[in-house]
């Protein structure tokens, strides 16, 4: 099939960018979206042109590195799917596809479609952990956890940190990402001792990093490739309120 791509090109964080248009006459339905970019880049390189820079690594939807805003949607038209898992069979012959980088002031552009998501790491460093040194653990089965809680915690922990929530949120808010970690640890008995401190510290750094505010549009939940639920945002809101009232 024939695909026309309008891709955001930007040499680096300091120079302005613009859209370039590329036409691929022969795209296979079985290709992934990124493999289509491989083919395009191969062509560009052979012509001596600069290939399109984009982040990707595992290409099986788990590392969270790929990050394209495709036709107005984070990771493209398919829900529950990262860009690397999106296949061209979901597009039609003759389509024009607009591809942009994640846009948020907390995610500055590095080059073309690559952005810097280290703000997420800094939020985790502020408190997204349970303080237990290696070797201090008790026997794993001495902490029974109701299956339902463990499953809920798992659902939160499934976050891949790709940033689609920020990218898709009209406010560039990172609430879904932050709440997924807060909620995972709040649901587990191991996470209780630091529960209040954790949520306060993480929210503080989240705000410092320049993410926007949550206005509950719910777009993040829909566009999240791992289906992280708004339940976690509610839990974080609750914990945040309580921690501010209690302490």
């Amino acid at each position, binding site marked *: 099939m024939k695909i026309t791509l309008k891709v955001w090109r930007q040499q680096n964080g300091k120079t302005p960018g613009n859209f370039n248009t590329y036409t691929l006459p022969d795209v296979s339905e079985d290709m992934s979206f990124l493999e289509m970019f491989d083919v395009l880049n191969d062509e560009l390189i052979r012509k001596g042109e600069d290939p399109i820079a984009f982040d990707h690594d595992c290409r099986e939807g788990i590392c969270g590195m790929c990050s394209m805003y495709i036709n*107005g949607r984070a990771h493209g038209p398919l829900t529950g799917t990262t860009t690397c898992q999106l296949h061209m069979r979901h597009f039609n012959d003759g389509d024009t596809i607009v591809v942009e980088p994640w846009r948020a002031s907390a995610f500055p552009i590095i080059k073309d479609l690559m952005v810097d998501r280290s703000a997420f790491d800094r939020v985790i460093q502020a408190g997204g952990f349970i303080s237990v040194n290696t070797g201090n653990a008790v026997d794993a089965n001495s902490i029974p956890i109701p299956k339902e809680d463990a499953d809920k915690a798992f659902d939160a922990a499934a976050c891949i940190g790709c940033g689609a929530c920020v990218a*898709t949120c*009209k406010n560039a*808010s990172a609430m879904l990402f932050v709440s997924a970690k807060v909620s995972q640890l709040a649901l587990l008995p191991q996470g209780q001792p630091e529960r209040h401190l954790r949520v306060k510290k993480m929210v503080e750094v989240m705000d410092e990093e320049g993410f926007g505010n949550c206005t509950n549009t719910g*777009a993040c939940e829909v566009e999240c490739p791992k289906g992280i639920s708004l*339940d976690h945002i509610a839990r974080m809101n*609750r914990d*945040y*309120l309580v921690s501010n009232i209690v302490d």
Partner: protein
Amino acid sequence: MALSGLFLCTFLVVHLLGNLQLFQNDGGVAFNLYSAFMANNPLIKTIAYVNYAFILLHIIDGFYLAAQNRKARPQGYAKVDQSKSSSWSSRNMALLGTIILVFLIVHMKSFWFEMKFGNMPVTTIEGQSYKDMYSVVVEAFSQPWYAALYVVSMFAIGFHLYHGFASGFQSLGIRHHRYTPAIQNLGTFLFAILIPALFAAMPVYFCLKNL
């Protein structure tokens, strides 16, 4: 935002219940008694000031949030398709809020300001004289442009609350798989449809009556 918003929702219910007196076919007696009560009762007056404070807070907070959120994404996308991921209302709360603010200014000027500081006609009920709010309202509502403004504004309130009511609960962390759908339904049917519809019915009723 959530606290002030939800408070204003309750205010809206009270306001509506009072204003329904307009529909009493008694030449405005019940309504005028009601408006006098609202203007003079010390408890109500206190609550009214709290209400003004919440309105102001809601407005200021709203503008502040909108500004912050704009700063969080200085450069927007060339192509955005959020139709599948969020409701139109939820994405346009600031716009809807601004329409409501404009309405509020007109509304307060027409009635609240007149009641407090204006030159009001006077009516006598059971020997006592009262400011005749009823006739002021009826006169205002009889003008088609004024009625139209009200109807449009009630649409804005409806859409604002379609998202806002349930959103307030989410922001406060009140979410439960069993009760949240009920909250959402309450937001939709009571706050987004019924209340704005009844409010809108008032100017429409008097406007049509006058034609």
